[in-house]
């Protein structure tokens, strides 16, 4: 166990360096493939051992043995590993393995460089989820970002990837500076960088403006990574241009890591000082999450570029994740954890299906692809099932997670959350089902006022048109979709998540374990998971049927009576207005980040008792 903690993030980095160094000697493609897959499988296994080892208490590892003395101050840099962080590391490892397997046949001209970048990205994500040090969180955030920028702009010879990577790079670098400012301020106040130490120093003090400013800057910085409205604009451009194996990492785990960091920093550092304002913080974050979920769902429904459609659906889901963690209860966090796992499997499978379409037909435009998907019935079935899963249909993990989040919201008196999650699930699921019917069945019609803008076509990632479906491409998609369902069916997963969430949110217990202050308070008592009722199942089935209905209405929109259509015209204008905000210009996106941060700052000023 003592070896697994440092090895899990460093192993992929070492292999990445070796692969990069060996590139000048010409590494055969299959050697690079095999080595990279073996590395990511090993990292996943190491992370799993950390996950199992940390279920009864956090694993603390101090680099160089710089452990704090009893009742001393933590100066050393350390990992503090809890099941939530380790679980995210396992998720990252699993998804990287899937994308490496998928790219076995994906781009033929890929060099070892691609594997190097993916392994660096993996190492950074694992370290990001395990670290217990606030400054290291920033360093790994940047390492993850640099890897992600280059991966997003991998096909740099085209205009789109250049623009997508630059927008991604500029917005996320501004975010990194906001985070660093927040860290600098909190270090000035506490003189500590270890998160447990910061929390311990701050606990019990009344909140003041400096602490609030630090929390604001760190939260808004991570909002950019998590694609929260209005910090989200990079997400569509980046997903539209990134190679498909990279998209599944961005949507499946990277944006979720942004939210994980917010939850971790809140619970480890700020919960002791901001607890008097917990109600206000909860309301603010839940409102931001709801806006994100709804805006993402509407934007998703208005897309016909399938990768952008899926990117906006991720944005909608990240809004629901934000709602789940900002309920500030173990049940909400547990629901989010289950939802993240289910979503990662389903969304990754959907991206892989879109990647297969791109490889076969050279485009991911819903209208251009109309009916052409009939040649690929298996892909169509997977894609349609994925659409139902995004609509939170049972038995998928998305259904279970969404249900637990709604229950948790009910318990803190926010029963309206159920309406937000239902509306966004119906719209997002409806969008995917609509494109599934258009592409794989062929009904529907061409461009009209519904799709207000057209995008340039994109080059296939591999120009040759394939006649058959390589097993390396379809197998990961099937496995991922099945795993999305397994997450929802696995007995005991939700109650384990609840136990992990209770530990994650118990600041004094974690601080005592990390700082080794001797007297361990008892391990947080695990509350009981509420059982699923039959009415919850009806809720999930109703949501899936609603999504189907919305999809059918959208496909047969020409047959809607004129009077209803003209009544809906202002709605279309509003959606069009929302879409023009997505200007494609990094300067505009940074402006929106500033506007969003200013709005949150105003809310803090009036909401918190400073």
């Amino acid at each position, binding site marked *: 166990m003592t070896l697994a903690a440092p090895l899990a993030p460093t192993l992929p980095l070492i292999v990445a360096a070796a692969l990069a160094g060996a590139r000048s000697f010409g590494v055969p493609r299959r050697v690079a493939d095999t080595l990279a897959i073996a590395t990511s499988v090993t990292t996943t296994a190491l992370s799993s051992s950390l996950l199992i080892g940390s279920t009864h208490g956090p694993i603390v590892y101090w680099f160089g043995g710089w452990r704090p003395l009893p009742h001393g101050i933590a*100066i050393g840099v350390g990992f503090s590993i809890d099941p939530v962080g380790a679980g995210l590391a396992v998720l990252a490892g699993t998804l990287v393995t899937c994308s490496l397997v998928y790219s076995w046949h994906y781009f033929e001209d890929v060099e070892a460089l691609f594997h190097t970048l993916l392994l660096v990205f993996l190492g950074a994500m694992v370290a990001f989820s395990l670290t217990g040090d606030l*400054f290291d969180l920033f*360093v790994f955030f*940047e*390492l993850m*970002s*640099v890897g992600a*920028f*280059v991966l997003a*702009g991998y096909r*740099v*010879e085209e*205009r*789109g990837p*250049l*623009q*997508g*990577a*630059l927008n991604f*790079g*500029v917005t996320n*670098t*501004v975010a*990194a*500076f906001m985070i*660093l*400012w927040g860290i*600098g*301020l909190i*270090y*000035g106040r506490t003189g500590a*960088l270890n998160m447990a130490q910061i929390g311990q120093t701050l606990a019990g003090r009344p909140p003041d403006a400096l602490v609030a400013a630090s929390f604001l800057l760190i939260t808004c910085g991570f909002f950019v990574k998590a694609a929260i409205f209005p910090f989200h604009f990079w997400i*569509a*451009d980046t997903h*539209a*241009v990134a190679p498909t194996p990279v998209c599944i990492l961005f949507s499946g785990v990277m944006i979720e890591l942004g939210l994980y960091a917010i939850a971790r920093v809140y619970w480890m550092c700020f919960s002791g000082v901001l607890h008097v304002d917990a109600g206000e913080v909860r309301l603010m974050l839940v409102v931001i999450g709801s806006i994100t979920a709804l805006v993402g769902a509407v934007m998703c429904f208005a*897309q016909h570029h399938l990768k952008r459609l899926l990117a906006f659906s991720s944005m909608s889901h990240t809004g629901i994740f934000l709602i789940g963690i900002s309920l500030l209860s173990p049940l909400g966090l547990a629901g989010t954890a289950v939802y993240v796992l289910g979503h990662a499997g389903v969304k990754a499978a959907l991206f892989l299906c879109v990647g297969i379409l791109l490889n076969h037909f050279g485009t991911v435009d819903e209208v251009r692809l109309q009916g052409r998907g009939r040649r690929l019935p298996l892909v169509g079935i997977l894609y349609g099932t994925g659409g139902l899963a995004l609509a939170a249909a049972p038995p998928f993990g998305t259904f279970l997670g969404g249900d637990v989040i709604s229950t948790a919201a009910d318990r803190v008196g926010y029963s309206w959350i159920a309406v937000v999650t239902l509306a966004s699930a119906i719209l997002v699921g409806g969008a995917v089902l609509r494109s599934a019917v258009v592409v794989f069945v062929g009904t529907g019609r061409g461009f009209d006022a519904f799709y*207000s*803008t057209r*995008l*340039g076509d994109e080059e296939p990632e591999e120009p040759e048109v394939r006649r058959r479906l390589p097993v390396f491409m379809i197998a990961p998609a099937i496995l991922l979709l099945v795993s999305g369902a397994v997450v929802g069916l696995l007995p005991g997963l939700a109650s384990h998540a609840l136990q992990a969430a209770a530990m994650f949110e118990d600041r004094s217990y974690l601080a005592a374990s990390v700082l080794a202050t001797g007297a361990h308070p008892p391990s947080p008592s695990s509350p009981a998971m509420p059982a699923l009722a039959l009415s919850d199942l009806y809720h999930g089935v109703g949501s899936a049927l609603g999504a189907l209905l919305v999809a059918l209405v959208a496909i047969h929109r020409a047959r809607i009576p004129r009077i209803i259509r003209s009544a809906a015209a202002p709605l279309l204008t509003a959606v069009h207005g929302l*879409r*023009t905000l*997505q*200007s*494609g*210009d*990094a*300067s505009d996106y*940074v*402006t929106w980040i*500033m506007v969003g941060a200013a709005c949150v700052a105003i809310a803090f000023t009036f909401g918190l008792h400073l």
Partner: protein
Amino acid sequence: MSYLPYAVAIWLLVVGLYGVISSRNLIHMVVCLGVVQSSTYMLLLGVGYRFGAGAPIYYDVPLRTPAVDPVVQALCLTDVVVEATVMAVLLALCVQAHKRFGSLDPERLRPLKG
């Protein structure tokens, strides 16, 4: 304790962000990000500075001599290294944009919108 370093840090932050927002040239935009980055150096060094204190090297001086905070200096150094990487990547993308499309104007490099 002086407020001057913090005032300078905030000034650099605001000026840099204004530059990023108003930029019409990719290189200019990346350099403005560099200005924003300098504000973080200013902040960190300001946090750790103590008047009348020496460098945190206890080679020839008694152990109780006041010294500036070495942690923020280590943070600054790390920040320089990390951000150098980020800037290098962003500048490489700019160079690529100029090489392929003969332009550094973000307006002319925008196939994606909506």
